[in-house]
């Protein structure tokens, strides 16, 4: 049995007096597609950032068996790729150059190798953005930019992908496209941890669903096990109908359990 691609125990993130992530234990094996859901401010983004090493955290984190603090930064970047929220591009680089940034952890020179070019071309083909290769990224629509951001992460060819709301601002078609890309990555021996807001998409996509609330994992299992009306009421403060669509549970939030929080 190989080491888990992501392992955390006692993981705690504090911002001053506020605890964003509280004593989380998590192990993600190769082949898993793990989706994290939770209310706003539950600590989902902080959990991902701590796993990448972007925010100071206490507890233990290991990436493919190596503790994060002793993992050199370039090697860490070859083991995990992180897709932040928002898909920001500060300069109007050509799409192909943006996707090629995913190869930075592997290259020493400025020129792309054949392997780099292949990875970039495959990532662009998989996300359906090959026809935009030479367009400045800032001229693309929100959905197109989101796919460019996903392509950049895919081009890194890291075993582990941590994605923060990869489907935000995508239409239903490309939500499924992006989810399928990430699922294929997991199926081919990688692992993906994705934060999603859409409970229906999360339930359809996830092999394993985590619910994070007040910085702690309050449920961890298959969507069928985790998505219960009681759990959603306790976590999100919503009354939800759980219906089965083609054998998969779908949660439809219907009303608030109590008065709206101002």
């Amino acid at each position, binding site marked *: 049995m190989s080491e888990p691609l992501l392992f955390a125990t006692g993981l705690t993130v504090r911002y001053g007096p506020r605890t964003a992530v509280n004593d989380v234990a998590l192990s993600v094996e190769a082949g898993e597609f793990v989706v994290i859901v939770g209310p706003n401010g539950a600590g989902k983004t902080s959990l991902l*950032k701590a796993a*990448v*090493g*972007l925010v100071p955290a206490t507890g233990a984190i290991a990436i493919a068996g190596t503790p994060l603090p002793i993992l050199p*930064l*370039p*090697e*860490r*970047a*070859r083991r*995990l*790729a*992180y*897709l*932040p929220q*928002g898909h*920001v*591009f*500060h*300069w*109007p*680089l*050509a799409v*192909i*150059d*943006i996707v*090629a*940034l*995913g190869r*930075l*952890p592997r290259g020493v020179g*400025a*020129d*792309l190798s054949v392997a780099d070019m292949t990875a970039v071309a495959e990532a662009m083909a998989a996300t359906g953005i090959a026809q935009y290769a030479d367009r*400045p990224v800032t001229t693309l629509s929100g959905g197109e930019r989101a796919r460019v*951001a996903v392509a*950049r992460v895919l081009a*890194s060819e890291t075993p582990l992908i941590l994605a923060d709301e990869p489907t935000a601002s995508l239409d239903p078609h490309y939500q499924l496209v992006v989810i399928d890309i990430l699922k294929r990555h997991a199926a081919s021996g990688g692992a993906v941890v994705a934060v999603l807001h859409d409970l229906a998409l999360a339930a359809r996509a996830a092999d394993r669903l985590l619910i994070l609330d007040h910085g702690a994992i309050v449920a961890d299992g298959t969507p069928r096990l985790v998505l219960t009306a009681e759990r959603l009421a306790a976590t999100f403060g919503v009354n939800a109908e759980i219906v089965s669509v083609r054998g998969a549970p779908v949660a439809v939030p219907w009303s608030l359990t109590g008065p709206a929080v101002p």
Partner: protein
Amino acid sequence: MTASARWRDRWLIGGLAVLVVALVAASLAVGPVALPPPSVLAALIGGANAVARIIVLEIRLPRALLAVMIGGSLGLSGAALQGLLRNPLAAPSLFGAPAAAAFGAVAVISLGLAGTLSFVLPVAAIAGALVSVALLVLVAGPRASLLVLILAGLAVSSLAGAGTALALNLAPNPFAALEIAFWLLGSLQDRSFHHVLIALPFMAGGVVLLLWDRRAFRALTLGEEAAASLGFDLAVIRMRVVVGVAAAVGAGVAVAGSIGFVGLVAPHLVRPLVGYDPGRVMVPAALSGAALLTAADIAVRLIPAQGEIKVGVVTALIGAPFFIAMIMRRRYDLAGGEP
């Protein structure tokens, strides 16, 4: 980078280098004493008469070299800061190093320790730039965020400006005050090879530090978090850029006074030619800065005026309206774009 982009960059850099060399040649030929190109060439290789040799080798050559070095380091510093800050409006003066270097030099003049052409002056200016970095780190902390760093830079700049004002205020006599005021304007007039040699090591060190992080600047296109996830230690990179700018720009201020706006304008002119790539823009920006300052320094010798107009005044007169135009064009992004 694709192979075609690599070739385009080579052509661009080659073309800019030819332009800089042509401007340097022009700079050697222009001055109060009219020298025809053959005598300039002869003087350069040790021929011609003694007067022509002195004019070309000891008066005009150091001046032309300093224009290239200072313009180049300003262009490179601007490109590096714009890459780090992901903002085309960033300028080398942002972290306070030029202001602190100016204060260091002015303090020396004011205390009567040195005249404007003495070697104590550049040493004090470079010391001022390095002290400003120390102060910046002290105020902002070693792993400061960009915003804190910018605010701390503003504070350091203000402090240095106050020091300069005090030095002017306490100037022992009106001549010293005038000397300081003129020196602050920025000029390449009457500089010698000693100035070139004093500035060179600091500029070379600064250039090495600034060119170091070209890959990181490209990664920063994706924002700080994505860049960090790609394996770049941003706290270290920020410090490297701050120290590199202080050394490169501080050395320039040390020998020529304050020359503004070249660092802002130079990268802007070449950025579209490298596909807006913040890594590929660095070397062309340096060459474009060298060309700009050399051209400006030729212009001050051609503009008819009582005495020579200072080159720092010319770059500011051209640069400030350019800056205003850039802000107006980017007003929408600046107000509602990414933070």
